[in-house]
């Protein structure tokens, strides 16, 4: 599974958001992701990939930002 698949699965399961709406420039807030859901999404990511998201990570605004942040963390984790 990659980052976008995880985000799509999460939004579908938790908020009933259709996958086709989960595109790069969609804003997370428009998809129903508030600060609490953001914590849940980060938790789901940590759980699935076994990666700890650092506390200083800035909250991403769009799906694309989120994917970029997650992909960056995965790359770093794989390199170390």
């Amino acid at each position, binding site marked *: 599974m990659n980052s976008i698949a995880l985000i799509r699965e999460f939004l579908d399961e938790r908020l*009933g958001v259709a996958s086709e709406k989960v595109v790069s420039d969609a804003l997370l807030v428009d998809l129903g992701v508030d600060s609490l859901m953001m914590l849940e999404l980060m938790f789901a990511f940590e759980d699935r990939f076994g990666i700890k998201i650092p506390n200083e990570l800035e909250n991403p605004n769009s799906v694309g930002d989120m994917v970029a942040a997650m992909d960056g963390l995965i790359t770093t984790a794989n390199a170390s």
Partner: protein
Amino acid sequence: MVRRRVAITGLGLVSPYGGDLADFFTRLCAGESAIRHLLTDDQPRPLSIPFVACPAFDADAALGKPLAAMMDRFAQLGMAAAFDAWDAAGLARAASDESRDDWGVSWGTALGGTLAYEKGYRELWQRGRERLSPLSVLLGMNNAANAHISIQLGLGGVSTSHTVACASSAVAIGEAFRRVRSGEATIMVTGGSDVPQAYGVARAWEALRVMAPGDAETSPAACRPFASDRRGLVLGEGGAALVLEDRDHALARGATIHGEIVGYGASCDHSHLVRPEAAGQIRALQAALADAGLAADDIDYINAHGTATAEGDPVEIAALKSVFGERAKTLPVSATKSMHGHLLGAAGAIEAIASVLALRDDILPPTVNLADNLDSACSGVDHLTVARQGAAPRAALSNSFAFGGSNAVLVFRAVRQ
């Protein structure tokens, strides 16, 4: 001192029978039990008990998936019941021009999000996980139900939860009533919800030796209040809600008034955690009557606490006989827990609804499984063993007597069209 009349303009619940409010009350009056055998797959030993569940309840359908996902089951049942009552009251879910800044919520729950915490423990201790979802705190907190109700209905006044064991929602309703009567609140959403099927909770109740036994065949008749062959209580899950409204406000908007709540009395036995005492119950009954400005002769129906425990039932009847004197012999009494079970923190709310509907529809629901098996220690009142129609009851009491010795009695007055 401001003293407003308090109208009941909305009633709602998640029915264990799966239907709507009217269907619920019809079945109660027909003497139909909602109690079934619950067999779980829990480890190390499955639960196998008579229980009242709401199997038809679909939280995603009732609340929408995003909202349902933010809640534990007790809050889901509470929110669904509150929506049901609110819609029935003819109020819009979204706030309009009228300020809702003094409209509030007073909710009862004995266990709150215990089930959510138990799921967390299972994850940690059975599945070997090291961490829990950040939502766990918000699913588990006891005030989750009232908080969600306030948010969904845009209510800016007090939002609080009451945890008083089996009297939780009776206390919540009583406190809501006082706020509307005093003029502090124009409208209060009140009631309660609970989910006692958490494995640790059900096992703990079993250990108290107050739960009635039963299998697939015998469970529907497992709860037998006031009967000589009673074996104990039957737990149940559920949610029930009432909308209490300043009567002038209700009349001004042309709302249907199902009845009035006119009194609330509370007391503590202050003697023992689990052994009830008539003296404490008598104080609550008398306080409720005095608060309502009614005499014992004005009361035409008692919805008893009546859990079907060995100790509790005779004490309640003794308290009623003491308060009602000669009138007790002709005082109609029933324990609807014999059909809908003991909903713990939602018990007072579902029984308040049964009491209001009994007055409104002029039909008193019965105690089932009670015929020629009355315990002589519970005699001396007019036990309703079948529904009674056409008695034109004027006022009713609903009793809730909790572990801890906390007693709460609500008084309702009929408003028939």
